[in-house]
């Protein structure tokens, strides 16, 4: 079995601060891995290592059998939603096009092939009807759909998403999750999904990588999201409850504690 991503004995330190040691996991085709954990445990840094933007302190990473940097062109990336300027002279389709050849130097015309690819990505995320709208005048959810289209347009062999649901309402959280889920089911594109709230994506998650300060655990949601596992990760008594199909974590010692129960009763693992 050949893996799309293989991470071996990875360590990350920032100066004196040790984020993790001996982190090892593999990602197979079609898998959806959720990366969970409190702030400051290196969730985003892990994605940046997979993109080849930063080097780990130790260990090795292979993406599609090569270094992350060499495979970067085949990685699709969905960042956090960030509102575009209202007056930006950029159409929805222009944002998607940037995912295709925006990183290339030199002069080039938009060929028929590229136009078709852009059209396909726009249709795939259901954004064809506002393809010519100025991006700054679209809603946050519509903009986020376009970021998914931008990530998909170059036919990626791996998808990385960094808190893509943040500040989206529930219906758009479902839409964005559905788009990523459908992609990996139809094309076998594995997804690494960084989130601080597992609940919106829980039904689609195959495995969870839980990063706690200085420690980590990986496994199916049922293996990792248990009182035993999290208690040993945090070295203190942590309770994991299942309430109406949602995961509720109580008692983590970090300062995130207060944020765990949100005003909607949503719980952030």
């Amino acid at each position, binding site marked *: 079995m050949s893996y799309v991503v293989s991470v071996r004995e990875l360590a990350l330190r920032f100066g004196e601060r040790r984020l993790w040691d001996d982190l090892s996991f593999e990602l197979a085709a079609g898998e959806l891995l959720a990366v969970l954990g409190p702030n400051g445990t290196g969730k985003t840094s892990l994605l940046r290592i997979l993109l080849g933007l930063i080097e780990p302190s130790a260990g090795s990473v292979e993406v599609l059998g090569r270094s992350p940097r060499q495979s970067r062109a085949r990685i699709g990336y969905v960042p956090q939603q960030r509102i575009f300027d209202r007056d930006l002279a950029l159409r929805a389709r222009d*944002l998607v096009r940037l995912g295709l050849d925006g990183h290339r130097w030199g002069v080039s015309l938009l060929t028929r092939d590229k136009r078709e690819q852009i059209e396909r990505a726009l249709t795939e995320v259901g954004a064809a009807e506002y393809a010519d709208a100025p991006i700054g005048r679209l809603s946050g959810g519509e903009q986020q759909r376009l970021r998914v289209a931008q990530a998909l347009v170059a036919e990626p062999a791996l998808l990385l998403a960094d808190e893509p649901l943040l500040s989206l309402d529930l219906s758009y959280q479902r839409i964005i999750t559905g788009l990523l889920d459908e992609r990996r089911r139809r094309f076998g594109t594995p997804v690494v999904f960084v989130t601080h709230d597992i609940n919106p994506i829980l039904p689609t998650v195959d495995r969870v990588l839980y990063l706690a300060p200085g420690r980590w655990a990986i496994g199916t949601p049922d293996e990792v999201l248990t009182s035993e596992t999290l208690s040993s990760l945090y070295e203190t008594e942590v309770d994991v409850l299942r309430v109406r199909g949602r995961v509720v974590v109580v008692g983590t010692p970090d300062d995130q504690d207060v944020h765990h129960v949100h005003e909607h009763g949503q719980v952030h693992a």
Partner: protein
Amino acid sequence: MFSQLLAQHFVHTALLAGAVVAVVSGAIGVFVVTRGASFAVHAISELGFTGAAGALVIGVDPVLGMMSGSIVVGFVLGLLSLRGRERDSAIGAVLAFGLGVGVLFLSLYQGYATEATNLLFGSIVGVSDSQLRNLAIVASIVMVVIALAYRPLVFSSVDPEGAEARGVPLRTLSVLTFLLLALATAEAIQVVGVLLVLTLVITPAAAAQRLTNRPEAALLLSIGIALVSTEGGILLSLEKPWPTSFFISAISFAIYLIARIVDVARPRSTRMSAPQTV
């Protein structure tokens, strides 16, 4: 009188110089406006003034001093690649100090005050043939670099997160943008002066943004607006002996106002949306 002036060599030189400057200013302006860095233009231009004043004191060509001043500031701003409020206050602090130094240099300078006035308010009709040639060379360099780096320049200015993930070197492009801006600013100073650089670098791009939502069209429109303003301003100043810089800024501002009105007058649903082209 108008047609007589129009036959003069110095008028031809001025019109050519104006055109060259308008093209670079209009082009780089689009990227500066997209990055929300209008204030940086002011800083680069005022420190260009400091450089020029310093050059006058030590007896060097002021244009050379101005170029050096602009480029140094452009490089530093690009390297810092600050965003938002932090950038505004940093630029404000640097700008104020630079201008203070410029004032000192001017007081030390024993020559004609006209040189300083020309720097501050522009002196398009005084452009010499060799100056025009230098303007054209610098402008060609800027335009070739913009053409070659066009896609990464756009990507990094509109969507830095996405661009970084695709391997676009953000810092390099930030430095590149501000260096190109410094060169364009140094060019524009020679036409409209230090205090009015914004009228060629920012106003046309801001107006263009209101008139189209296609990035390439915005670039061309911005260049077009800068051209109409500059050439129109020079021609009007032949007719009426008011400062050229006034006419240029008046025309570009009028176009900006019209662009805003046109944008507001459009119905909400079709506002800023371009016709189907694919």
